[in-house]
């Protein structure tokens, strides 16, 4: 804004942000105080003692370590799968001619409105028939398959502004359609691919419904966490640790890359012109 802004503006913003910060601070504080001290509220200061007991004990009590590895594996493969397959599809839709190109594209990019609830019932039956229940493929296929609805759209949008002369030149110089993808388009589209990777990583890491239904033994963090956060359980301190362990990785990724995140949605919200 132009001109001098009134002093109350930042002060009000700071005061309002307390509403968003305090609940999260509550979790962190609960995790480092002895449980007895927080029975009357984590904010009470009548007896201040900090302890990391919950942080050490939680690993034995809940299977968080194992779940962390499982989550890393699922989110890692799910993200890589999308990052590898999406650019090829977006390139084909943008630069190649083949029958039903536009129809296929319209079907794929409009599928982004579908909630996961719409696909889980038939997949559950299908995975049961194929014996894939509790197999990591049973979550990876929907993770990657669902992602194309938005990832192809995002990368293809980027390619619409890609200098077509470059592609044409490579074709004239003797590249086939696939070679011109690998040598010309792919090396120059890393930023949207990276953006797709961040979004997909957050989606996979935080997924609850899909692994809750399809996995039995190798459970990712959100599923394990949802099981231990049942309403009438005690151990508020250890569950607070579990909450932090569950969300720390996606939260850091989210905050570190928020510039890309914001830039992406800024460019895409039509304010580019």
């Amino acid at each position: 804004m132009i001109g001098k802004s009134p002093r109350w503006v930042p002060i009000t913003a700071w005061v309002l942000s307390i509403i968003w910060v305090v609940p999260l601070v509550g979790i962190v504080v609960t995790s480092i105080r002895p449980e007895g001290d927080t029975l009357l509220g984590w904010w009470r200061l009548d007896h201040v003692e900090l302890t990391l007991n919950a942080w050490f004990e939680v690993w034995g009590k809940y299977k968080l370590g194992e779940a962390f590895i499982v989550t890393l594996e699922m989110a890692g493969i799910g993200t890589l799968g999308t990052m590898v397959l999406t650019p090829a599809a977006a390139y084909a839709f943008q630069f190649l001619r083949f029958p039903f190109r536009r129809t296929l594209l319209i079907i794929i990019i409009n599928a982004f409105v579908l909630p996961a609830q719409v696909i889980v019932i038939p997949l559950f039956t299908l995975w049961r028939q194929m014996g894939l229940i509790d197999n990591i493929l049973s979550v990876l296929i929907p993770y990657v398959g669902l992602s194309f609805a938005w990832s192809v759209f995002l990368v293809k949008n980027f390619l619409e502004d890609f200098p077509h002369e470059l592609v044409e030149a490579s074709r004239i110089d003797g590249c086939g359609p696939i070679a011109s993808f690998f040598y010309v388009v792919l090396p120059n589209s890393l930023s949207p691919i990276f953006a797709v990777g961040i979004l997909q990583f957050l989606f996979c890491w935080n997924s609850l419904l899909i692994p809750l239904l399809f996995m039995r033994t190798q459970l990712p963090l959100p599923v394990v966490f949802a099981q231990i956060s049942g309403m009438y359980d005690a151990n508020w301190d250890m569950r607070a640790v579990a909450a932090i362990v569950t969300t720390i990785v996606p939260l850091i990724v989210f905050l570190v890359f928020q510039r890309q995140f914001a830039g992406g949605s800024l460019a895409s919200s039509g304010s580019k012109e």
Partner: protein
Amino acid sequence: MSQVALVTRGSDDGEFSRAKGNGRELTPLRRWFADAPAASLLLLPVLVLFAFAVVYPLVQTIILSFWDIRGLAKPKFYGLGNFITLAQDANFRQAVVTTILWTACTTALSVGAGWAIALLCSLSPRRTLIPRVMIFAAFGVSEAVTGYVWLQMYRGDGAGLVNAVLSLLGLGGLAHAWLGDSNTAVWCLIIAYSWAQTGLPLLVIFAATQAVPRNILEAAYVDGAMPMSMMRHIVAPLSMPGVRVAVFINLLGSLRAFDTIYVLTGGGPARATETIGFFMFRESFTQFKLGYGAAATLVLLAAVLIVSIPAIIQRTRNTR
């Protein structure tokens, strides 16, 4: 989260891209099938996975909704029976009411709060960076963890901050076990979810306010406009595209919400906080009535399609 990137690109630049061409005019002799072998190689994995994860389940959900399937018993054809049962099921009607209330209120609250804060922050973008990031951070917390964060806030045993704040304000008489009361549980959920979602409208609308051309603001400033009137007559109206995008994303998100409900109330007490997206889970996977759950899912899908018609039309029209 993934919707962010997706919806937002409205592509008003259609003319521009078309004028520039997408390479096709340059090679008029190229045949329709010219690239088909290469295209099928590049697209095959995507199409196979998409068919597995989206097309087959979608079609199959529609088919299943006409069948009566309970546990491992032999499925029998049921016609519209599932839908008739749904219409008569008091729990489902409750879920529809909850879904409408939930979707409308969470969207209104989170977009309203995000919009207000975005306009406020646009008065002083630099000095409000940290508050903005702090509000935005809540959006980056896993939805399941959001549920737990608020589980702790709503604790009824004296260690819940909500009750403590109420008694601090002299309203201690209102304190109770918020989640155990079916009248308040749904509002608890709405507040928790809106709290988590506010960061997104804030981001999108704040970005829209920052994209207001400087020369308009400069002209207003030269003409003697005060910050508040610039806000009211220039920035607020010009942030409307951002608001529309935020409303749509939040509507979609609320309709598909599952994680926060699962952790915070589990649909209870007495199924008072079940949305359709949660109802289908319960019927299909705890009662194992797969056909019945599929029918409920189609109702959810219908709701999703109704709110996304404009977006789908726009996308389809802009697809080249």
